[in-house]
C-alpha cells in the first residue's frame, strides 16, 4: 500500500511535466494540424537555459535567495523558448503552409536535429548536473516493519501545484478570453476566422509561443527534479508527451493534461512493478495501441459534421 501511494505521487509528478509539454503538441496540432516534432527539443533548451541562467545568477552575480533566483530563471527560460518557438514557426513552418502535409513535418524533424546538435556541440554530449536545490519534504505514512515510508518532497509539491495553477490559468485563457476564442476559431475554420478580422498568422504564432513557454516551465521542473540534463532529454520526453497528447485526444487541452498524468503514472508504475529497463517501451507501446484502437483518444472530439 505504501509503495503504491509513493508510486502514485511520483507518477503524478512526472505526469505533470509530460502534461505541460503535451499542451504544446496538442495546441499546435489543433490550430495547424501538424505534429511539431521540434517541441520536445524546446523543452530541452528550456532546461539548458534554466541551468545556464541558474549558474550565472548564483555564481557570477552571487544571488542566494532561491525563490527569486528560480523566478528569474523561469522567466528568462520562458522568454528564450518563446522566441525560439516563434522563430521556428516563422522560418520553418509558415512558408510551407498550404504545401503538402508532410512538408512541415520534415522541417520539424530538421529543426529538432538542428537544436539537438547545436546543444550537443556547444554543451557537450555528457550530462550536465545541478546539485539538488530544494530538499526535504513531508512524510505522509511512516514505514513499518515490512513497508516503506511515503515521502512527498517539497519539489514534488511545487511541481504539482505549479502545474495545477498553470493548467487552470491556461484553461481559463482558452475558454474565456478573446485570444483563446480566436485560437479555437482558427482551429475550427481558419478562413472564417480571417473573415471575422482575426489575424490568423499572428494567432498561430502566439500558439507556438504559449506552447514553448509551457515547455520551458517543464524544462526547469525536470532540471530541478532530476538534477541532470543532456541534449537528448527532449527526444524521450517529447515522444512521451506526444503519446500523452494522442492518448488524451490530440487537439484537446484537457486531453493533454489527462494524457500527461496517465503516461506519467503508467511509466512510474511500470518501472515500479515490472521493469525499469522497459519503461520507455511501455510509453511507445501505448502510443501504438492508442493509434490503432482509439485514434481520437480519450477526450478527443470526433469531427463534428458541418452542415
Amino acid at each position, binding site marked *: 500500500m505504501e509503495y503504491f501511494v509513493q508510486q502514485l505521487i511520483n507518477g503524478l509528478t512526472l505526469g505533470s511535466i509530460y502534461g505541460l509539454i503535451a499542451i504544446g503538441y496538442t495546441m499546435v496540432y489543433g490550430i495547424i494540424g501538424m505534429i511539431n516534432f521540434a517541441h520536445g527539443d524546446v523543452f530541452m533548451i528550456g532546461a539548458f537555459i534554466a541551468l545556464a541562467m541558474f549558474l550565472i545568477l548564483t555564481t557570477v552575480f552571487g544571488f542566494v535567495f532561491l525563490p527569486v533566483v528560480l523566478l528569474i530563471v523561469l522567466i528568462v527560460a520562458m522568454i528564450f523558448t518563446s522566441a525560439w518557438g516563434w522563430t521556428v514557426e516563422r522560418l520553418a513552418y509558415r512558408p510551407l503552409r498550404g504545401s503538402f502535409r508532410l512538408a512541415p513535418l520534415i522541417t520539424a524533424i530538421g529543426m529538432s536535429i538542428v537544436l539537438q546538435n547545436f546543444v550537443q556541440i556547444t554543451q557537450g554530449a555528457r550530462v550536465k548536473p545541478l546539485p539538488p536545490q530544494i530538499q526535504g519534504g513531508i512524510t505522509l505514512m511512516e514505514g513499518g516493519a515490512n513497508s516503506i515510508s511515503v515521502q512527498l518532497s517539497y519539489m514534488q509539491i511545487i511541481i504539482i501545484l505549479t502545474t495545477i495553477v498553470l493548467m487552470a490559468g491556461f484553461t481559463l485563457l482558452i475558454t474565456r478570453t478573446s485570444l483563446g*476564442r*480566436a485560437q479555437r476559431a482558427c482551429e475550427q475554420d481558419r478562413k*472564417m476566422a480571417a*473573415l*471575422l478580422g*482575426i489575424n490568423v498568422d499572428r494567432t498561430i504564432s502566439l500558439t507556438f509561443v504559449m506552447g514553448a513557454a509551457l515547455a520551458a516551465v517543464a524544462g526547469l521542473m525536470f532540471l530541478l527534479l532530476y538534477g541532470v540534463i543532456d541534449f537528448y532529454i527532449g527526444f524521450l520526453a517529447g515522444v512521451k508527451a506526444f503519446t500523452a497528447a494522442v492518448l488524451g485526444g490530440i487537439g484537446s487541452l484537457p486531453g493533454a493534461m489527462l494524457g500527461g498524468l496517465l503516461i506519467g503514472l503508467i511509466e512510474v508504475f511500470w518501472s515500479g512493478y515490472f521493469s525499469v529497463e522497459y519503461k520507455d517501451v511501455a510509453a511507445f507501446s501505448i502510443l501504438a495501441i492508442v493509434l490503432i484502437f482509439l485514434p481520437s483518444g480519450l477526450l478527443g472530439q470526433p469531427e*463534428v459534421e*458541418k452542415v
Partner: protein
Amino acid sequence: MSEQKNPLLSVRGVETYYGNIVALRGVDMDVHRGEIVTMIGANGAGKSTLMMTICGDPRARNGQIVYDGVDITQMPTHEIVSLGIAQSPEGRRIFPRMTVMENLQMGAALVDPEFFDEDLAKVFKLFPRLKERISQRGGTLSGGEQQMLAIARALMSRPKLLLLDEPSLGLAPLIVKQIFDAIRELNEKEGLTVFLVEQNAFHALKLAHRGYVMVNGNVTMSGTGAELLKKEEVRAAYLEGGRH
C-alpha cells in the same frame, strides 16, 4: 441611385484563378451606399468566388477592388474586413464546436466591447430563435438556424457592407421569407448596404434594388431588379420552372 459618384464598393476588371483555372474573367460591378444589390447566376458561375475575392481570399490576379475609397485589392483578409465589410459566406461556416454565443462573440472580435450587449439585443430581436439556442453548439443547429447565426454573426461586426452568399440555400420557404424580411428590414431601417448572391433569382431580384447576372465568370446583364425580372433571358434561365 446608380448615378451616385462614389460607390461604396467598386469592382473593376477583376480576374480570379484557382491555380490555372479561371473563375472570374474580368468582373465589373458597383454597390452604392444604402443599396441592396444582387448577383444571380447558375451553380459554378463564380458568385462565391467574387464574394471571397472581395475579401481577399483568393486574391484577384488582375483588376481592382475599391471599398469606401480604399484600394483593397492586395490587402490581407483580416484588414479588409476591419474596414467594415462582413460576410455570411457560402456554407455558413458556423464554428461547429462553439456555442451560439461564442460564434456571436467572434463576430464582434473587432468591435469595442462596450457595444456588445446592445448589438446582441439587436440581433436577437431580428432572429429571436437564436436567443433560445444561445448556449447550444453551432454544429448542432438546424440549417435555418445556422443561416440566421451566420447573418447575425456578420452583423455583430457593425458592418457598412454586408455580403450574403446564398442565404436561402437549402432552407424551407418560410425560413427563406424570414431571412429575406430581415435583410429588407436592416436595409430600410438601418440603411445597411447589402450585396447578395443567389441562385434563388426570383426572391433575390424582388428584394434587390439592382441586380447583375453572372455566367461562367462574366457579368452578362445588369439592371434594376424589376427590369431583370421582366427580361426573357433571365426568366428562361433562372425563373421558369423554378418559380417559388
